[in-house]
């Protein structure tokens, strides 16, 4: 079990991880949160804040640490490098994209909070670019997350350097989406007589 931890200050993560003690097998730090120490800029868009948050958590636990980065960072590479430098074991790219949807015709805000996170298939090309940029800039694995619905979508991300993928929105309509994706990926490997996704991508590139 991976426990997701959020906070509104860089020093807010470590106490939570400490309090969680032996619970969970790994932690994902959701740094796509407004930083109340810095006028609400996202913690995850600021490499210094990321480094501070991750370094403090690193002192609290030996369990694997994933840092989940936001879409709106001026340099995703610098953010991923900050996480790596502070001892993260992987980064997850990315969270949902802040958006303001309106109702048709009345143009009233479509969601109660006015602003919310856009997820699902429409964000895939945006996140693909970020995964590509992040994967070139760090040595730790990059977990891709954004609009994955099928094994094909997952392979898109693997082909730009992701080591693993996460599936969110697609599971709402198809609760077994992840199982299907894993099965299809296994089938692709079997069909092409390779043992892993990396080999699959190399093989397709070579063809």
């Amino acid at each position: 079990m991976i426990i997701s931890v959020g906070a509104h200050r860089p020093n807010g993560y470590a106490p939570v991880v400490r309090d969680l003690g032996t619970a969970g097998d790994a932690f994902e730090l959701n740094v796509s949160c407004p930083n109340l120490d810095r006028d609400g800029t996202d913690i995850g868009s600021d490499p210094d804040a990321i480094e501070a948050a991750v370094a403090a958590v690193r002192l609290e636990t030996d369990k694997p640490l994933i840092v989940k980065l936001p879409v709106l960072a001026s340099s995703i590479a610098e953010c991923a490098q900050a996480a790596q430098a502070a001892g993260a074991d992987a980064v997850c790219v990315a969270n949902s994209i802040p958006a303001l949807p309106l109702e048709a015709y009345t143009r009233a805000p479509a969601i109660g909070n006015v602003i919310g996170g856009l997820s699902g298939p429409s964000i895939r090309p945006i996140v693909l670019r970020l995964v590509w940029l992040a994967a070139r800039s760090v040595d730790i694995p990059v977990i891709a997350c954004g609009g994955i619905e099928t094994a094909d979508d997952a392979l898109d991300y693997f082909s730009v350097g992701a080591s693993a993928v996460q599936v969110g929105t697609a599971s709402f309509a198809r609760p077994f989406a992840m199982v299907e994706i894993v099965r299809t990926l296994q089938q692709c490997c079997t069909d092409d007589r390779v043992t892993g996704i990396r080999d699959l991508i190399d093989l397709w590139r070579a063809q």
Partner: protein
Amino acid sequence: MSPMKTPPTAAETRAALARQAAFAAADAAALDGLLSVRPAEAGPRPEPIWDEATVVNHEVVRERYRRLTLSCGTIAATALAGQFLMITVPPHGGERILLPRPMAIHRRNPERGTIEVIYGVAGRGTTALAAVKPGQRLLVTGPLGRGFEFPSGTRRALMIGRGVGVCAVMGSVEDAATRGIHATLVASGRTRGSLIGSAECAELGARFIPVTDEEGTADLPTLGALLRREFAAGPPDVVFVCGAGVLTRLAAELGAEWDVPVQASLEAHMACGLGYCHGCAAPVRTDPAVEGPLVCVDGPVFDAAV
């Protein structure tokens, strides 16, 4: 299926949306301070499953609604009164419906392994759902949420539904029939022709009271007076309500007069129905420092009291 109507003009759509917004605002105001999460259930909730349910029948009913009969034996056998489904709507004419839509389970037929849903076409999702043909398969997840529960010793129950909200209380009318509870269903709507529940009540031996806007019987003072007269000899032991905040308020007021509990089923925009997304905050007053209850898992049925 009904013939294609001409699409509404932008002005008509704007007017309809303005009516909807006004209704939603009145609804929220009426519910303010009424609701609380129900105490722990007596028994365990049935485990939700997902199922590729075959569409057995799909027909227009009561002028403006559609009845969808689905073959899904497990849900038919396990669903509790007042629980709901998430229906994943297949793509239609180039339109992709990303998120599933919540729908009350109107009828359960465990012998035939079928359930019925009645819905109105509201927007993109239900428009695409209306195109589904018998024999097609629909992905459904359920049964979900917390249903209506009769307090022990209930002998008489009052159910009140507005529009398609009748469907959320119909399962409790079914339960009343099997438990020998005397049920009265008030169906409120715009027109007589659109009211849901008359045939169902005849089948289940429940009393059916239609009230409509067109006849001037559905407004709150008139309906309140009617119910006070109806139960003058002795109040019901419990009231279940769904479909409008103002009706929930009326039910809560009657409940206070009669000194009986009231349970109300709510609607909310739902992305998952499973408690994952936290997008369906319930209009329940809570400590602002802690996250409040969710309509999909803590409800959709809540206690309502003035």
